[in-house]
């Protein structure tokens, strides 16, 4: 029987690597707690000082722990920092699946990832067969047919048996992301390619295998909606996405006053101008 995911137990997870993301993630988690008060949360913050390798402090109902990312990130202030940190996501989700998914069921896992800059305006309504192997995420359709279709990893749902095909997908995604952190690939997309392109490729390879899973392609506007147009708040999605990438990807934008204050994001009426908006600074529109 199909159910909405908000009627099912799930682990919500995210990590914030670099201090700029800490408050951002807190804001996201507050909206998750509001709409999914029963979901256990696994949240990481890093880097923790004093370790040679990049290490995150992890809080969950299981207690406090430290997870060491098994590759050096070698952050040097360049754009590569962002390209490496986002790829930690694949490894992180495989770890959560392995170590924490039992928080809701010993053998069957359901894990939801939300980016730190996501804000939930309601409970997730993704519909799933509760015991099926499922990957769900917003899907970008390449209307020009260049083969660039991709899952968008700002919000993801993974569901399946602990040792099932979705677990294998996560392990493969993790391995590929770690390999790319060590050796960043040449950028060959119209946008900076990241963990989501790695996941798209892995999903493609598993779609061609005998192992069976369902890929649910969610509407982007609803699940990673961008609320701003022409310097104004124009809409609210079920999950808003506030594009920290605009601040954190390039070295020259890291001091930018972005995203807007939390209060604006949560309470501003439709049509409210962005505080301090300058059309000349707007890169997204």
């Amino acid at each position, binding site marked *: 029987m199909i159910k909405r995911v908000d009627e099912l137990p799930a682990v919500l997870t995210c990590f914030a690597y670099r201090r700029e993301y800490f408050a951002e993630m807190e804001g996201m988690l507050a909206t998750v707690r509001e709409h999914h008060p029963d979901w256990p949360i696994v949240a990481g913050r890093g880097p923790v000082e004093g370790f*040679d390798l990049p290490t995150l402090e992890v809080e969950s109902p299981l*207690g406090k722990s430290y997870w060491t990312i098994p590759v050096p990130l070698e952050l040097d202030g360049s754009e590569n920092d962002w390209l490496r940190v986002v790829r930690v996501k694949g490894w992180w989700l495989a770890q959560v699946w392995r170590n924490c998914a039992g928080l809701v069921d*010993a053998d069957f896992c359901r894990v939801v990832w939300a980016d730190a800059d996501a804000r939930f305006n309601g409970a997730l309504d993704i519909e799933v067969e509760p015991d099926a192997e499922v990957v769900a995420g917003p899907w970008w359709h390449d209307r020009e047919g260049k083969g660039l279709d991709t899952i968008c990893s700002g919000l993801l749902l993974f569901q399946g048996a602990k*040792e099932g095909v979705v677990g294998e997908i996560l392990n493969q995604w993790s391995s590929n992301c770690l390999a790319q952190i060590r050796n960043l690939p040449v950028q060959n997309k119209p946008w900076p390619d990241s963990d989501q392109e790695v996941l798209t490729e892995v999903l493609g390879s598993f779609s061609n295998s005998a192992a069976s899973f369902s890929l649910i392609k969610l509407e982007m506007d609803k699940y990673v909606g961008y609320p701003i147009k022409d310097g104004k708040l124009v809409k609210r999605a079920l999950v808003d996405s506030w594009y920290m990438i605009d601040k954190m990807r390039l070295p020259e934008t890291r001091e930018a006053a972005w995203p807007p204050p939390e209060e604006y994001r949560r309470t501003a009426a439709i049509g409210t101008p962005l505080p301090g908006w300058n059309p000349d600074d707007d890169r997204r529109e």
Partner: protein
Amino acid sequence: MNIMYIVQHWPSLFETYMCREVQWMKNRGHKVAVVSLGSEGPMGFRGVSGYIDPSALGLDEVPVLRLEAKHLSKDEMAGEANSFARRHNADLIDAHFAREPAEVACDVHAASGIPFTVRMRGGDVHSNTSPKLGSIVDRASAICPVSQFLADVLVGRRKLKSAPNGIPADVSPGKLRVLPYNLSAKYLSREPAKQSDDVQIVGSIGRLVPLKRFQDIIAAVAGLSREFPGLRLLIIGGGVLEADLLEQARRLGVADRVEITGFKSWDETMHLAGRFHIYVQPSELEGFCLTAVEAAFKGVPLVLSRTGIHEECVEPGTNGYLFDAGDVAALRGHLRSLLSAGANRRREMGSASLEIAGGRFSEENVMPRIESVFQSAISGAALPS
């Protein structure tokens, strides 16, 4: 004390004694931290799911460093473990067991001077020794096999058919102490198992792999089936040999008397073990064999092969018998003795099992010994005898 445990995987469903030890040390007021190397556990348990909630054991406040052995070099693991040891002001590192955890502990000791102790289980000594075993036993403050059998194999007092590399090892007698696995006395039955002259269930627990020699029990039971019409065999466990063992029972005409349960959780296993009247463990080789102790805690007579902890579990004639692994005739003979002895005598022997195992393997008796070894390792004093 500030103790930092280094383990293969935390928390592990199949090594719950670790959780209990950490809990016990914490309750004694010691500060405890855990480094989980994320390496594989015992082969036979791969693919078997399970989950432990540390908060249910009061362990959610224990800081844990999670590493992934398959992606990290030994140097990287030692570096991270050393940073974690500094963060927690560790006085002592306790490595479970003498493979990767002890190798990392040895490297952290070399870099930091923090003393370390090593727990040794079966595979570490009798089959899959660390290539660094020599350095480990040389530098550790205490080497602690889980049974006297393993201690004897380690130092060459007891010979195996085929000894792995590094065995026997040159271990100073002053640093060798046996620290057995243990069970809380709350699991010790108040009374011996009820016995019957009508039905007698011979039980055994374990992974269905060749080393456990479950085929010997089936053969022994088949040889007694005509003499003892109430005789049954209950094997709690699963594994690669399940179909072969059932086929053997069918071939020997005792299929209706043999039940194999498949893998069960610990709670389910303990519940099912409550049906046993006699416990048999015919293993070729064990490092410890906790199931024999668990059965003894149920208050049944024991028939055990001479390996692992078995010789410490049984006082022959008092609470059971010992035999050489593979000697089906001896096993059958011991079972015949127990079955012929009658329910009252078996009950007396079950009572003796409670006394012997409760005294030697209860958490309440073993944990203080572990604590004393740790304290001596930190202070540099001679280890307690």
